[in-house]
C-alpha cells in the first residue's frame, strides 16, 4: 500500500496569496494513498525540510510530493532531504504550484482548484515511481575552450593551473579577442595590450594547454564527462612547425592594401599576415581570398623568401578529434556594424566611425601611433561628437537592450581625446549614464569635471556633411528640447554590442540554448550564471551578454572553477532517468520484436542490438539494448516503439497515463 506524504508550501506569500494552501492540504489528505498532508510557510527552509524527514520516518512513507516551486528550482533540495531520511530520492516529486499556478493566476477558487489538480496528478505519479540508483560515468579530464578572447585566455589558464588539460580553439589567426584591439581600459586607464599580452604568451607556453588558432568546432557529440569534439583546422597555407615567425614573407608580399580587420579598416595588411605584432602565435596565415597566387596562379614571393621553406600552398583543412569532459563557450561579442543608421551617415562619411575604430586611433600601436586624426584627411579634429546608445536601446533600428559597456567606453574615449588634444572639445550625446561598477561613477565625474567633456542629454536626429564638417542635429532634453546643432570634425558612434557571428550555429551544434539576440543562455540568471542548460557545457564572458573586462574575467574564473570542480571527481553521478528495454520471463524474454525502428531515431546512438542466447549459446532472439552511459533519456525511442517495449525511467507509461487520468478526471 502506498503511503504518500504531501507537503504544501506557502512560499511566504508567493503561493498563499492566490492559492488557499490550507484547503489544498486538506483536500490532498483525502486522496487515496495519502498518509500525511500538511502546509507550511517555507518548505525549503531547515524546519520545512525537517518536517519532510520526520514524516518519512514517522509514517514510513513510500513517496513524497512537495507542492511548491518549480522542480527546476528545488527538486534536488527535497530529493536530498528524502535521501537523508532513508527514502530513495526518486520517490520524491515536486508539484509546481508556484510558477505554474499561483504566479500566473489571480486569487480565485479556480486557482486553488488547479493547485489541487496539480497535487493530485503528482500524487498519482509518485505512487508509481520506482526506487532508482544513480548512474556513474567516467570523466575525461580535458576541457575544450572555444574562443580565445580574454575570457577564454583567463579560463584556460585557470583550468590548466588546476592541473587539467585544456584545448583552446580560436577561429582567428591569433588569440586576444577584442581586448587586444583596445587602447587603454576604463576605469583605470591601463594599457590593454600591456596587461593582456603576457597572458597570451602564458597560454602559448603552458604545458597543459594545446592551442589551435584559425580553427573552428566542426561537430560535438557525447555528453558531460565524455564529449567527442571534432575541430577543423583551417589551412594556414603554412607548416607551423617550420615557421619561425621571422616575418620575411610579410615584408615581401606584394599585396599590401587589404583593409586590416584588426585596425577596423583604418590600417592595411598584406595577404600573408599576422593580425597584429604581438599576435600569439606569432606566425602568419595566407588569406586566400586576397593572395595573388590563389587568384591568378602566380606570385609565390613568400615561398621564395621564406628561409625555412615553411609555405605550403596546397595545404588543406585538417581535422583533429578531442575527447573532453567539459566545454567552455567564450566566443565573445561583436559590434553592430552595418549602415543600419542612415541618418547618422555611418558607412557614408569617412569621419563617422565606431568605438572600436576610435580605440585603434587612440592606441599607441594603432595606425596613427596613438594620435587622434580623422580618417578622411588626417587632420586633428577640434570637435568630436560621441553618440551613445547608437543602436542600443533602439527596438526600431537596432537592438532593444542596453549594451552596458558603451557609457563607460564613451566616457573613456572623450577623456583620451581630451588628454591627447588639449584644445579640442568632446561632446557626448547620451540618454542615461550607466556607470555602476567599482570606480565607474567617479570615472565619469572626472570626465565631466576635470576633462570638461560636454554631456548633452538627448538623442541625435541626424548627422550630415557640409563643407568638410559633420553637422550634428540634436536637442538638449534638459532644456525643454532646445535644438543643439554642432559642427563637428568627427563623430564616434557607440554602436551596440551584439552576439558574435556564428553563435547560433555553434549553439545548435552544442545543443545549448540562446536568447533571441543569439547570446548564449545561462542555466539560471542568478544562481547558475556560468552554466548552460546542457550539462558539462559552460560559458564565460561577452558571449552571454555584452560585458566589460572585469566582469568577463570574473565569469571566466567562475566557469574555470566549475570545470575544475567537475574534474575533481573521477566518476560523474548522473540521474538514472533513461530508457530501458522491458524484459520478461522466458520464453518471450521481451516484447521487443526486433524491428529496430528505435535505432536510427536515437540522437545519441545509444541503442544497439542484444542477442538473447539459451544455455548452449544458441541465439533465441535479437532485441534492442540501451547503453546507459550514452542514453540521455529523451524518450524519442519510446514514442517510436510500436510494441511499447521501451520505457523511460521516471516517465514510464504507467506514470504518465496515471498523470493524465488524475489531471482530468476530477476537473
Amino acid at each position, binding site marked *: 500500500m502506498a503511503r504518500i506524504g504531501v507537503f504544501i508550501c506557502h512560499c511566504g506569500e508567493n503561493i498563499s496569496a492566490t492559492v488557499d494552501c490550507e484547503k489544498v492540504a486538506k483536500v490532498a489528505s483525502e486522496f487515496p494513498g495519502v498518509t500525511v498532508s500538511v502546509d507550511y510557510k517555507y518548505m525549503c527552509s531547515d524546519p520545512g525540510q525537517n518536517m519532510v524527514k520526520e514524516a518519512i520516518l514517522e509514517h514510513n512513507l513510500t513517496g513524497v510530493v512537495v507542492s511548491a516551486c518549480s522542480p527546476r528550482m528545488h527538486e534536488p533540495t527535497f530529493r536530498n532531504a528524502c535521501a537523508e531520511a532513508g527514502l530513495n530520492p526518486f520517490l520524491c516529486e515536486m508539484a509546481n504550484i508556484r510558477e505554474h499556478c499561483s504566479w500566473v493566476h489571480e486569487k480565485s477558487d479556480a486557482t486553488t482548484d488547479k493547485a489541487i489538480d496539480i497535487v493530485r496528478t503528482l500524487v498519482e505519479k509518485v505512487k508509481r515511481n520506482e526506487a532508482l540508483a544513480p548512474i556513474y560515468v567516467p570523466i575525461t579530464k580535458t576541457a575544450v575552450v572555444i574562443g580565445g578572447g580574454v575570457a577564454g585566455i583567463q579560463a584556460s589558464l585557470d583550468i590548466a593551473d588546476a592541473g587539467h588539460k585544456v584545448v583552446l580553439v580560436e577561429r582567428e589567426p591569433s588569440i586576444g579577442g577584442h581586448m587586444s584591439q583596445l587602447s587603454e581600459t576604463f576605469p583605470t586607464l591601463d594599457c590593454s595590450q600591456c596587461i593582456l599580452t603576457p597572458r597570451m604568451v602564458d597560454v602559448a607556453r603552458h604545458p597543459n594547454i594545446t592551442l589551435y588558432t584559425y580553427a573552428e568546432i566542426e561537430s560535438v557529440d557525447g555528453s558531460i564527462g565524455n564529449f567527442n569534439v571534432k575541430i577543423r583546422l583551417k589551412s594556414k597555407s603554412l607548416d607551423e612547425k617550420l615557421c619561425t615567425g621571422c616575418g620575411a614573407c610579410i615584408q615581401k608580399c606584394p599585396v599590401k592594401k587589404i583593409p586590416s580587420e584588426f585596425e577596423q579598416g583604418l590600417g592595411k595588411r598584406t595577404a600573408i599576415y599576422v593580425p597584429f605584432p604581438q599576435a600569439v602565435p606569432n606566425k602568419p596565415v595566407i588569406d586566400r581570398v586576397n593572395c595573388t597566387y590563389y587568384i591568378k596562379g602566380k606570385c609565390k614571393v613568400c615561398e621564395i623568401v621564406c628561409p625555412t621553406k615553411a609555405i605550403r600552398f596546397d595545404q588543406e583543412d585538417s581535422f583533429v578529434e578531442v575527447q573532453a569532459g567539459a566545454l567552455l563557450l567564450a566566443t565573445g561579442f561583436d559590434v553592430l556594424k552595418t549602415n543600419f543608421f542612415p541618418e547618422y551617415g555611418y558607412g557614408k562619411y569617412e569621419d563617422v566611425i565606431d568605438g572600436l575604430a576610435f580605440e585603434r586611433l587612440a592606441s599607441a600601436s594603432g595606425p596613427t601611433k596613438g594620435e587622434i586624426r580623422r580618417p578622411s584627411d588626417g587632420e586633428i579634429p577640434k570637435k568630436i561628437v560621441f553618440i551613445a546608445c547608437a543602436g542600443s536601446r533602439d527596438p*526600431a533600428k537596432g537592438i532593444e537592450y542596453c549594451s552596458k559597456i558603451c557609457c563607460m567606453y564613451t566616457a573613456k574615449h572623450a577623456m583620451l581625446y581630451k588628454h591627447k588634444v588639449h584644445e579640442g572639445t568632446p561632446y557626448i550625446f547620451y540618454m542615461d549614464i550607466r556607470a555602476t561598477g567599482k570606480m565607474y561613477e567617479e570615472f565619469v565625474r572626472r570626465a565631466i569635471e576635470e576633462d570638461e567633456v560636454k554631456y548633452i542629454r538627448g538623442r541625435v536626429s541626424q548627422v550630415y556633411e557640409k563643407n568638410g564638417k559633420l553637422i550634428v542635429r540634436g536637442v538638449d532634453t534638459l532644456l525643454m528640447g532646445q535644438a543643439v546643432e554642432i559642427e563637428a570634425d568627427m563623430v564616434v558612434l557607440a554602436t551596440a554590442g551584439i552576439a558574435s557571428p556564428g553563435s547560433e550555429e555553434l549553439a545548435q551544434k552544442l545543443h545549448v540554448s540562446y536568447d533571441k539576440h543569439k547570446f548564449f543562455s545561462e542555466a539560471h540568471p542568478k544562481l547558475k550564471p556560468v552554466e548552460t542548460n546542457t550539462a558539462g557545457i559552460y560559458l564565460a564572458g561577452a558571449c552571454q551578454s555584452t560585458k566589460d573586462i572585469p566582469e568577463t574575467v570574473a565569469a571566466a574564473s567562475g566557469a574555470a572553477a566549475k570545470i575544475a570542480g567537475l574534474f575533481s571527481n573521477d566518476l560523474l553521478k548522473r540521474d538514472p532517468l533513461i530508457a530501458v528495454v522491458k524484459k520478461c520471463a522466458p520464453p518471450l524474454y521481451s516484447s521487443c520484436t526486433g524491428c529496430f525502428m528505435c535505432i536510427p531515431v536515437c540522437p545519441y546512438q545509444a541503442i544497439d542490438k542484444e542477442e538473447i542466447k539459451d544455455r548452449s549459446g544458441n541465439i533465441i532472439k535479437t532485441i534492442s539494448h540501451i547503453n546507459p552511459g550514452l542514453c540521455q533519456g529523451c524518450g524519442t525511442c519510446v514514442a517510436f516503439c510500436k510494441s511499447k517495449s521501451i520505457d523511460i525511467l521516471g516517465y514510464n507509461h504507467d506514470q504518465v497515463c496515471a498523470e493524465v487520468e488524475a489531471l482530468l478526471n476530477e476537473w
Partner: protein
Amino acid sequence: MSAHIENNSLSAKLQHATEVKSAKCYQCGKCSAGCPVSNEMEYPPSVAMRLLQTEDPENDKKLLKSQTIWLCVSCEMCLSRCPMEIDIPKAMDFMRQKSLAEGLSHPKSKNIISFHKAFLDSIKFTGRLHEISLVADYKLRSWHLGQDVGMVPSMLSRGKLPILPEMIKGRKQVAEFFKKTKKT
C-alpha cells in the same frame, strides 16, 4: 486587456483610441531634434510626450490648449526616427480632435484650423477641392483678407486656378459622409 478604464487621463484615452502608448517614450528627444517645426512649438514633441506621461489634468489641458498640436505638419519625421516607434503624428491627430471637441484650441491656431475647416467644406459641397473657394472661405474665416490675394492674378494667368468648381456626381454621397462621421 481590461475593459474598464478607470484612468481618465489624456494619455489613457489616447492609448485606448489609437494604441499609441506614451509610457513607451523614454525621453530621448530624437523626435524633437528632427521635427521641422519643433522650434516654433512651445512643447516640442518629446516634451509633449512627457506631459502626457504625467497624467496630470493640468498638463493634459496645457497640451490641448497648445499651439504645438496645430503646428505639427504630420510629416512623420519623428515617427520614422523614434527608437521606440511611437506614433506621435497619430497622437497629434488625436489631440487636435480632442482639443476642438473640448473647445480648447489655442487662439493663435485659429488660422490653421480655419484652413482645415475651409478645406473640408470645399470638399463637402463639391466632392473635390476648389482652390479659389477654399482661399475665399479661409479668408472669411480667418479675417486674413489681404493675404495671398497678390498671388491670384499670376495663378490665373498660369492656368493654375480654375474659376468654376468641378462638381462630381457623387457629391451628395460625399456630403453624407460628413453627416455620418460627425459624431466623432
